[in-house]
């Protein structure tokens, strides 16, 4: 397990959801660092900019939580772009959405997303999903940041929470 800080990047335009996410992350025992961007264009710029003066590559996150509905460029488009970029396809991308449509989820799996979470309306369950997903990711990450993380099987792609156990049922 990676004992260093877990760098989380959240891309979501909704202020409330960003707040919920932030609260969930703060309660975790894992050491984390959370960065937030608010639309697809901002996300791609954040991932690909270079600090010009020092010519340093941008710091890539350990995991990206990506909302599907964002203005200017949506989550599906960002996922496709990232998986085509050799520098951006190594960290897991977890798709977020208010709604669930089987066709959309299948397409996201085909495009290489790591997990899919439907945002639950109950706040406590929402927090739990975030926390347990982060724990799961922390366990899955390799010791160094150079290796690829393998996409789970389709049956385990959609994450839901039942009571207090994380449950990877297929819907």
């Amino acid at each position, binding site marked *: 397990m990676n004992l260093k800080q877990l760098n989380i990047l959240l891309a979501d*335009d909704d*202020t*409330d959801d960003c707040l919920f996410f932030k609260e969930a992350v703060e309660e975790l025992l894992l050491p984390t660092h959370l960065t937030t961007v608010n*639309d697809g264009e901002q996300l791609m710029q954040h991932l690909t900019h270079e600090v010009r003066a020092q010519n340093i590559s941008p710091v890539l996150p350990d995991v990206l939580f990506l909302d599907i509905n964002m*203005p*200017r460029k949506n989550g599906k488009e960002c996922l496709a772009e990232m998986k085509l970029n050799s520098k951006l396809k190594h960290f897991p991308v977890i798709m977020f959405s208010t709604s669930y449509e089987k066709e959309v989820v299948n397409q996201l799996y085909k495009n290489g997303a790591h997990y899919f979470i439907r945002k639950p309306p109950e706040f406590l369950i929402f927090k739990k999903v975030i926390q347990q997903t982060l724990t799961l990711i922390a366990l899955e990450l390799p010791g160094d940041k150079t290796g690829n993380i393998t996409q789970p099987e389709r049956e385990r792609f959609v994450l839901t929470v039942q009571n207090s156990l994380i449950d990877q049922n297929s819907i």
Partner: protein
Amino acid sequence: MSKIKNTDEGELAIVRAELAFQKEEKEKLANELIIARKELAFQKEEKGKRAAELGIANIELAFQKKEKGKRAEELGIANIELAYQDEEKGKRAEELGIANVELAFQDEEKGKRAAELGIANVELAFQDVEKGKRAAELGIANIELAFQDEEKGKRAAELIVANKELVFQNNEKEKRAAELGIANEELVFQNEEKEKRAAELIIANKELAFQNEEKEKRAAELSIANKELAFQNEEKEKRVTEKDKRAAELIVANKELAFQNEEKEKRAAELIIANKELVFQSEEKEKRAAELGIANKELAFQNEEKEKRAAELSIANKELAFQNEEKEKRAAELIIANKELAFQNEEKGKRAAELIIANKELLAFTYISSHDLQEPLRKIQTFATILLENETLTENGKYNFQRMQLAAGRMQQLIDDLLAFSRIATTELKFDKTDLKLIIEEVKAELKDTIQEKHATIEATELGTANIIAFQFRQLMYNLISNALKFSQPDVPSHIIIKSEIIKGNKSISEKLSMGKNYCHITVKDNGIGFESHFSERIFEVFQKLHGKEVYGGTGIGLAIVKKIVENHNGIIIATSELKKGATFDIYFPAD
């Protein structure tokens, strides 16, 4: 001891009491016996009555048995009938089951039909495109056919011309042949003449040779004569008269010689003339021969040409035959295409009817669901206000409720916008000639407060009339103008220019416009914050915004509605902009 005695006394009392009690009982029993005997007697009476009644009852029973038998029979029949009805009920239940399965199946089928309808509609749209392509191809084929007919006419004309020329050339050939015949005759004649001349020449030469012989003879005779003269001169002295005779003979001979020399010179002159004439005739013969050679070459050349024409003619004929075949193929294809077109028109008519029904159903569904959706939403909003007012909440709690109210308010707006969008998509389209200035005035009145607030100016002087669906166009203008006001630059008063003109369709504006057709072109231009040009098509998508929910209000459906209205007018809309340099919306739709 006393205890035992007491006990005995007690027992005695008890026995006595029991005895008294039994006496009482015995009396009671005796009374009861009397009563019982009375009752028995009574019962005997009753028994008699009962026996009588029994008799009656038995009769009745017998009767009832009969009846019962009848009933049993009837019951048997009824049971059979019931069993039969149960069978029937079972059958009906089966049939019902089958009917239900069939109903479920029909529902499936209905679903499939709806899907097929969607597919059919897509296909119809595709077929319409194909039909358009076929029509275009047909038009092209017709143009080509007309062109080929022209070509055929030209070939026929050329053929006539070629034939005339051939006839003419044949005439020329015959003339040449005639001339040649004449030339040959003349040549033959000249050859005859030449032979005559040659013969005459031979004769003349013979005569000349003969004359030369004669000349030599004469010369010889002359020398002899001279000798004789000399002798005679010698003799003269001897004979003068013989000298005179001889002198006279000599003069005659000299005259004859002179005459023969003249003749010889005449012959020589004639010979020279004859030679000149021969030379001349030889030249003429050579000229004729040369002309003949040229005439032959020309004939050979004309024959070649004739053969070329004949070859071209046969090719032209083959091509004509081929074109006729092609024409017949096209005609056959045209008939098939027409049949197919007629069939497609039928299908289109059916689809159009189905579409009208589907649209009506969709509108009803949308209306009802928007109502049903609004009810729970209203409850959320109501209870939120109740809780906010009546409960004591922490600052965080109040904040959370306000966030909730905002979200509910957004949903309300979304439902209203969705309903507006579906209404635009499904209502019937009625076009009227409308004054655009009037539409703008109405929209300005609706947006009066915002215009004042933003210190905005709206310039709408260059506006004419257009053939439009008035209430939809009002919605379009409302959306565009309210956007222009909403997205104004913070320190620059909003200035909006709206104008219209009639233009001719031009592919440089857009591929979708038809060349030369009349279009009404409306421009709405503002000086607001603008947008990056690569979003110029995304902004027309449903629920697409370029900013977060809190930055600028709205659901992102306004421009989708605008685009749908433009499409209802068979037009196109193009958005152009740069960040901070305002935005321009150009709308084109057919003016007729």
